[in-house]
């Protein structure tokens, strides 16, 4: 915790030092950025944009999991599915998210559904790859053990297979969330009239650097809160049995 605080303080100090060398229109300092952010919040237009972005991120993540998890699990379980799909998962991973966004807006129109579909499809391949890897790593010796002890199929799945796959699901949620934040902002920039991405682009066009940084800062803080207040505790609860690696 101490180390973390020091590293944050060091980063802010470095930011401040750098900002001394530039004008505020190129690199505003931490204080000015924070002031801008506080003014924005006081003006009351922050929440709606942040909320819209969060909704898109959450829905996009849900869609990505809905597509990615079954594909990954099936690829891990069945060699035929693996052979049929591995190329396409790779292709899906390579196509730039901008292409998905443009195609979705053209096909589905400039609306929320298109936004969420674009986000979901972009993030799905990496989630599928994670799960594919996870299912392949299932310890079949434990499955055999459970069968010797007459465990029903459902019990084997729930109590032997699922706990082994869960770390990979968790990793892909994390990883997916990281990707999805970035895509969501990009998609908002090209096709939505609100959201953090829209705001970033708006202020960029006005060349207002303090505002651009203020929105970036806000975004980063919210992401950290989600990571620390939601994901970390869930992970801790799920995996408290795991020994710590000590090198």
């Amino acid at each position, binding site marked *: 915790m101490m180390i973390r605080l020091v590293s944050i303080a060091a980063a802010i100090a470095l930011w401040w030092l750098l900002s001394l060398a530039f004008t505020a229109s190129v690199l505003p300092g931490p204080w000015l950025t924070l002031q801008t952010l506080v003014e924005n919040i006081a003006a009351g237009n922050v929440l709606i944009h942040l909320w819209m972005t969060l909704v898109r991120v959450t829905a996009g993540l849900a869609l990505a999991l809905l597509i990615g998890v079954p594909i990954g699990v099936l690829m891990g379980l069945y060699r035929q599915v693996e052979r049929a799909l591995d190329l396409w998962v790779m292709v899906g991973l390579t196509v730039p998210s901008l292409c998905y966004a443009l195609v979705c807006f053209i096909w589905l129109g400039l609306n929320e559904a298109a936004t969420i579909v674009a986000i979901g499809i972009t993030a799905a391949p990496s989630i599928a790859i994670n799960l594919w890897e996870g299912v392949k790593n299932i310890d079949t*010796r*434990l499955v*055999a*053990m*459970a*069968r*010797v*002890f*007459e*465990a*029903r199929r459902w*019990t084997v799945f729930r*109590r*032997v297979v699922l*706990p082994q796959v869960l770390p990979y699901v968790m990793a892909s949620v994390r990883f997916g969330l990281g990707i999805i934040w970035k895509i969501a902002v990009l998609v908002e920039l090209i096709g939505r009239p609100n959201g953090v991405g829209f705001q970033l682009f708006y202020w960029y066009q006005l060349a207002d650097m303090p505002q651009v940084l203020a929105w970036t800062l806000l975004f980063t803080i919210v992401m950290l809160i989600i990571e620390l207040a939601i994901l970390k505790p869930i992970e801790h609860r799920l*995996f408290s*049995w*795991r*020994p710590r690696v000590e090198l």
Partner: protein
Amino acid sequence: MNDVVFSVRNLVKEFPSRDGAAPLRVLKGLDLVVRRNEFICILGPSGCGKSTFLNILSGLDPRYSGEIDVGGRKFKAGKPPLRIGYLFQEPRLLPWLTAEQNVDFAMRSCRIPASRWTALKDRHFHLTRLDAFRGHYPHQMSGGMCQRLALVRALCVEPDVLLMDEPFSGLDELTARRLRVDLLDIWRDTSKTIIFVTHNSYEASFLSDRILMMSQGEVQQEIPIDVARPRDYDDPEIFEINRRVVKLFLEVAQAAAPATP
């Protein structure tokens, strides 16, 4: 004969080969009778089909030909009509469950009535001297303790037969030796039928009533061990028997592969 637990006749197991050649015959007509409360050791070199045999007996592998009768009834493929306790070469514990939860998992799977759980656990944790570790996770325990926990799990499901697949081969000699002695005590106290697979001839000589020497997918020799129980691990009589067993073992191995020096 009421006290026959398993009777196996002409058991054949083949593994299909990959490149269209003749399938690999792992068991070539195995015959075996196991009586109630007997301690049988199947002794054989690696790759002789010992583990394959246990997999069939435990119901894990339903693809074989031949006949297996269990207590006079036909053995239905994949569904042994009697309860099996299995001790694998590795402990095979679920790492996200504590020692006690691992045992609970097996008892729940085997549908042991919950009213008996406490008594069963108390007894077997005590027998294996693991009382103090019921709340520990497997990674907090040593290899020998994990294997003992696996034994607790196998005993708590009240098995008719205990199948053991080289359960002590991954442990250091001192630990293994202690567990062998413990196992005989537990066997005496619980009167189970045990089929114990090993490639360690001294282990087989010390533990069993009968050694079935297996090679090339068949039982080549049957050696009764008439040493009185309880046995002493350092009994010269067992050393003497072991010497004979090793000699036979070498002969059998040589007959199997005459070309190798």
